[in-house]
């Protein structure tokens, strides 16, 4: 899992990434700066619950991805099989460029999480 994150984090604009399970427990993480990783994992889980409920009740299918743009950074929360991939990005990042790498990483996490 750490190898997947390490490879992903080489992409320009990505500040770090982590993998959490659906209950918010951190499976692996790799950030360039100090982070409250356990807190981020817990928060990701609660956001996911809100999203799952909303999408189901307005017939938009299963959750696949949530991109939050904030005043300081962006974060993408991606469904990756049994796990969740969270990627922290610079605000100026070119989303078109990083989307492919994030998708590849999510697929790799999904594969690993089956094992």
């Amino acid at each position, binding site marked *: 899992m750490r190898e997947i994150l390490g490879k992903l984090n080489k992409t320009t604009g990505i500040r770090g990434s982590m993998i959490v399970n*659906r209950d918010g427990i951190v499976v692996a993480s790799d950030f360039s*700066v*100090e*982070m*409250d990783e356990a*807190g*981020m994992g817990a*928060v*990701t889980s*609660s*956001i*996911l*619950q*809100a*999203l*799952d*409920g*909303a*999408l*189901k*009740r*307005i*017939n*938009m*299918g*299963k*959750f*696949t*991805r*949530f*991109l*939050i*743009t*904030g*005043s*300081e*950074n*962006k*974060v993408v929360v991606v469904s990756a099989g049994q796990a969740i991939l*969270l990627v*922290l990005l610079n605000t100026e990042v070119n989303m078109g460029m990083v989307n492919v790498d994030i998708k590849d990483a999510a697929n790799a996490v999904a594969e690993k999480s089956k094992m």
Partner: protein
Amino acid sequence: MGLLGFFSQWRTNSKIKSLESALQGRPTPVLYLQLADAHKEAGNSTKAAQVLKLGAARFPSAPEIIRRQAEAEKVERENEKKRLIDKIQSHPNPILYARLAELYKADGQIEKTIDTCQKGVKAFPKYGGTYLVLGQIYVEKKQWPQAVTELEKSVELDKYNYLALKLLAQVYMELSRPADAAQRLEDILYFAPGDEAILELLKKAKESAGQPVDPPRRASDDSRPVSKANTRILKIPEKKADNQRDKALNDGVAQLRTVQGVTGAILVDQYGLVVAADLDASIDEGLAGALITNVYRTAAANSVKLNVGEFEEGLVEGDSGNIHILHVDEMILAVFAKADVKMGLLEKSIRDFAGTIIQRK
């Protein structure tokens, strides 16, 4: 601008950039304070207040930043009060009364809060947000029966109001009515499944009422039984009187729906009440508003913990479509679209509409 002015502005902008960069690396309370000062120096007091707010959220035990943030907020509240009073005179609408009352409440001006709410209720009796603020005041004063009256009225007008339902449940508990509290909390879980604070309150309410406590359920758990409370809440609420809706906002929302691939749009105020909507008839707009508010509330409340700063916008993707969520002028705009919508076109339309909302302010 003279050469000296230009040089001074260049120096301030460079300082801002350098401080922003330092904050990205290793944030400290001092850096937030310095950045706020630099924005103030550049004449941008709104940005300075935003920086202080972020700093306070990240360092809640740093006294200087908390003090400065409180000062900045007070100044902003005073300016906003003046603006709202003028706006109520020229173009009254129910949200303005509720917002003004909230500001008086934040400054501890209880009599003015009650007076503003009463005026708002008289002018717009079918808007639930004003009853909610009144209910909050009575809760603070521990006047439980009055609080129940106002909060029940708020919930009657908007069955999906998270704040009103939660507060009403807490008041029922104070009045030793745990079964009623449990029912209201179950109502919330329909549109905010997995909300830990609500689950905890529900557990206590059920224990007090002598009811069996269910194990916590996941949002994705389809086996969740629909309780009587949920049967009630699923009933499509009466269409709110159109005269309470702002025509310009409704037109703007309808305009968004004309973008190819957009299936609907909704504008919700800070209390979770629908301000304007254009959705498929199959979607209950009150429920959609509540779901969007819940997603927004969860994301915005945790954005600092996620290291993104203050929430600005979100894009939720499901396998059958997308939801674009934007925070604009203390309201939440959500646009529902098919997965194949042209993002560039949609984002431009959303920004145009957001610009219109801000200009109206």
